[in-house]
């Protein structure tokens, strides 16, 4: 089944100049390999197309079941000169929560925030 990433991972953005880092942290060790396999740097870049204008690099911290995406040219020239209302891109991480993840049925119990099946 396809579910939004929101049910499998939590996220946070940080800023340095014109670069945003967005961490994607699996809710459970069982979900991490799915995210690692499906949410590649290329797919992440495509998801943010037009908003992130530069290169995206992905770092993996397997021990914490976390991916760290570093997106260049993501903050309108940099926090200090950006005309975006959210200069720091603090809310930028939330978008990726809508990325669709293919999750096998047997891992349904690992997901967070799902309504009980009807």
């Amino acid at each position, binding site marked *: 089944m396809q579910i939004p990433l929101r*049910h499998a991972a939590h996220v946070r953005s940080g800023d340095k100049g014109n670069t945003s880092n967005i961490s994607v942290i699996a809710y459970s060790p069982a979900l991490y390999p799915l995210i690692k396999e499906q949410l590649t740097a290329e797919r992440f870049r495509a998801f943010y197309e037009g908003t992130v204008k530069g290169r995206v690099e992905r770092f993996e911290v397997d021990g914490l079941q976390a991916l760290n995406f570093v997106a260049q040219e993501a903050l309108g020239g*940099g926090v200090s000169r950006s005309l975006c209302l959210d200069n720091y891109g603090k809310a930028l991480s939330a978008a990726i929560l809508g990325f669709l993840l293919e999750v096998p049925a047997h891992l349904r119990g690992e997901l967070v925030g799902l309504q009980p099946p009807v």
Partner: protein
Amino acid sequence: MQTLRIGAGAAWWGDRIEPARLNAEAGDLDYLCFETMAEATASAAQVRRRRDPEFAGFDTYLDDRMQAVLPGCLARGTRIVSNQGWINPQGAAERTVYWLRQLGHRGIRVAAVSGSLITDRVLGLADRILENGEPVASLHSQLVSAEAYLGAEPIVEALRAGAQIVMTSRVADPSLFLAPMMFEFGWDPLDHLLLGRGNGIGHLMECGAQVTGGYFADPGFKEVPDPWNLAFPIAEVQSDGSAVITKINGTGGLVDLRTVKEQLLYEVHDPGNYITPDVIVDFLGTQLRQEGPDRVHVSGISGKPRTATLKVSMGCTEGFVGEDMFFYAGPGALRRAQLAREILLQRFRIVGLKAEDLRIDFLGYNAIHGAISPAEPEPYEVAVRVVARTRTREEALKVGREVDAMAVSGVGMTGKRVPHQDRTREVIGIWSTLVPREEVKPIVTYLES
């Protein structure tokens, strides 16, 4: 010393003060550390000082913060390390001495750490701007401030000399927390393994409540108990650099594996090479263990030898921003907003607005995430936000003037704010560069209450 208890007192200039008071009074702390400087803080202070010679040049909330925490800290013997000195650490130290005397405490040693300001030297010391590869010298006409990020060593020197309170100018955020560990445990400044661990703990602490549930709640997914009553974190550090991140019992918020993981990667690029003035931190081997409610044990962080250079943040005047907004609601709101946008773009042409960058966003629709915002569903309410960056304040003022005109010369059913005066602000752009470490010489001076 067996366990060193270090608490956070602020994560930025605008942070809450009550949790700092609580940490001072009930945290049983050996150290309370304050981080109050953002990238542009020093530059903004320089610009303000040019305009207002009365401006003291240190944290504008210093009085509030010191009045809140000094009684608790002095009663317990808690030492304070703080970067509230901004561009005038000596002034911050003097003001702290004033408050100590007001509270009847004599003979308390206060140190000021300066030497990070290298505005007059940076053009000769540095080569290239890190962000764009241009020569640093090209900034000479716009430069208002350049500050090197100092490490923990001058703070350790002050603590060794008996300072109870240390007020610094620009110091790397985690170094404020690392310094007490180096001093109390006698860590060698070149022991990159211990410094890596300690600085990693400092990184978890530097953003205050961001690790205790203050930047975490997402209803239905991540619940935070009593988020109105958040506490600032406390690190219980061992001499081997492992630590427990926790908070005062009975407060709101939470410390768990999720909050610690989010903070661990916050503002980090390569987690194996997090560069600080004291050490390169390697987070890849980090091990986290929930050892009790609101108690996360952190170990396995590592470090690599520090770099030969220090990072310098350079603030430059880059013109002005003019900004205002107006509103639509109800059926057809978005269509009216789009027509308003067309009218404004034409009007800016008519008045010859010279903008270096211009945005007209629909707040509630695409203002935050920009191009990736979905077209559907149509919003019920839209704020039209108009913003331009210009060379001069006169140009920036044109934004507000044209928004005013939309009140009667625009689109039907336009909502507006009461016209307000201050719709422009000065822009201080930040660039970074590197300078040789030995060119930056921290200075520690002492006062006594």
